């Protein structure tokens, strides 16, 4: 049952992120809602959840919007795995982990994304300097993501504690 809910969440997230959530852009930067879901499940349930949800969400985005398939998938999967490594040593109901981990997750996923895009010849023809990229895109997005990610984490946390999530569908 949890599997079904997570799949539905991922698909709904893709649809919303490409349509309504575009309006959350401040100076062109939008928080990454897939990362928020990945981090939430990675904190709550560990690396395997983080990695698989990362793979699924990343592939969905690549299929619908990517020119090169696999860049988002591998970035989100690595991020989900790394964040999930903290799963055993964290209080799941505290407010601090989602803040810090969303911030870190954006760093990891965006750097990985840029790296893979660069190597698959998918990046800009004139080149963007690293520092400007860091200051203008990655850092603001990390801040934006950690603030909104806290909210999303609480919602997913509450959702995951419902008894119907543990129900088996077979």
């Amino acid at each position, binding site marked *: 049952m949890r599997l079904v809910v997570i799949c539905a969440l991922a698909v709904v997230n893709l649809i919303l992120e490409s349509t309504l959530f575009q309006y959350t852009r401040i100076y062109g930067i939008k928080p990454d809602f897939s990362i928020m879901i990945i981090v939430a499940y990675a904190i709550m349930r560990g690396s395997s959840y983080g990695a698989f949800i990362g793979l699924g969400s990343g592939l969905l985005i690549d299929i619908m*919007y990517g020119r090169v*398939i696999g860049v988002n998938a591998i970035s989100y*999967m690595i991020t989900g795995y790394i964040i999930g490594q903290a799963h055993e040593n964290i209080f799941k109901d505290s407010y601090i982990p989602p803040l810090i981990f969303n911030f870190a997750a954006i760093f990891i996923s965006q750097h990985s994304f*840029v790296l893979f895009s660069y190597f698959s010849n998918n990046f800009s023809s004139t080149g963007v300097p690293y520092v400007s990229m860091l200051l203008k895109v990655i850092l603001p997005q990390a801040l934006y993501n950690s603030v909104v990610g806290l909210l999303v984490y609480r919602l997913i946390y509450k959702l995951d504690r419902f008894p119907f999530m543990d129900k088996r569908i077979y």
Partner: protein
Amino acid sequence: MRIRNKLLISLVIVSVLLIVLISFTSQGRTRPGIVEELFGRMITPVQGAFYSSGEFFRNTFKNLYDLRNLKAENDALKEEVEKLKQQNRQLIQMALENSRLRNLLDFKDTNLQFKYIGASVTGRDPGNWYDVYTINKGSKDGVEVNDAVIVSYGYLVGKVIEAGDSYSKVMAIIDERSSVSIIVNRTRDMGIVSGNPDSDVIAIMELEADIVKGDDIITSEYSTLPKGLYIGKVKSVEKQERKLQKTVVIEPSVDFKRLEEVFVIKPIE
């Protein structure tokens, strides 16, 4: 094997598979694969509903906000319409005369007519780096890869990079990976424009090029897109003596934040 090792090993295997997938697809594709077709076909209509609902709310708020300035704007617009009608009459006269003179000189008629395929934008790339839109028309409506996509007033939006059956992906001109061959309308100087993280379009031109702020930029005849499509006005020109080039910043006339209805155009000879 402990659970942790199993996960790490399967992670490494999947990573390798993904890297192989990346290297295959980075060669460039024109048709989405079977899996993607399926996803696209299912997801695009739903996205369309959400996208247009977002537009509806934004339009409502905008209309309420604009209510105050409506009368003044209306009067200004009426005046401009009259001026444009007059200009239009003169231009039609000139076009007829042009056509007549061309016939006299036996020029081949280079006036291209287009076939318009109307489409709605259903979604935009959720990342922060690229500007790829999906539209709800595909190859069964006649959309092909490398077709130009414009807004109704003739401003260039981008070009089609992939065409599925019922949906297509359009890369906007402000995407960093896109490049369009252009000429400056006034001087007929040529150049190439690419996108830029600030949502402008950048052209690199030679140092001696005659280009100033306010010039109009249109697609050239060497572009894979039809010629004469309007891109935007020059916003600033910066000389870079050391690189022997001028960096021209062009503000695209299309408002990419408010993209709704677009047309895919195909030239018919």
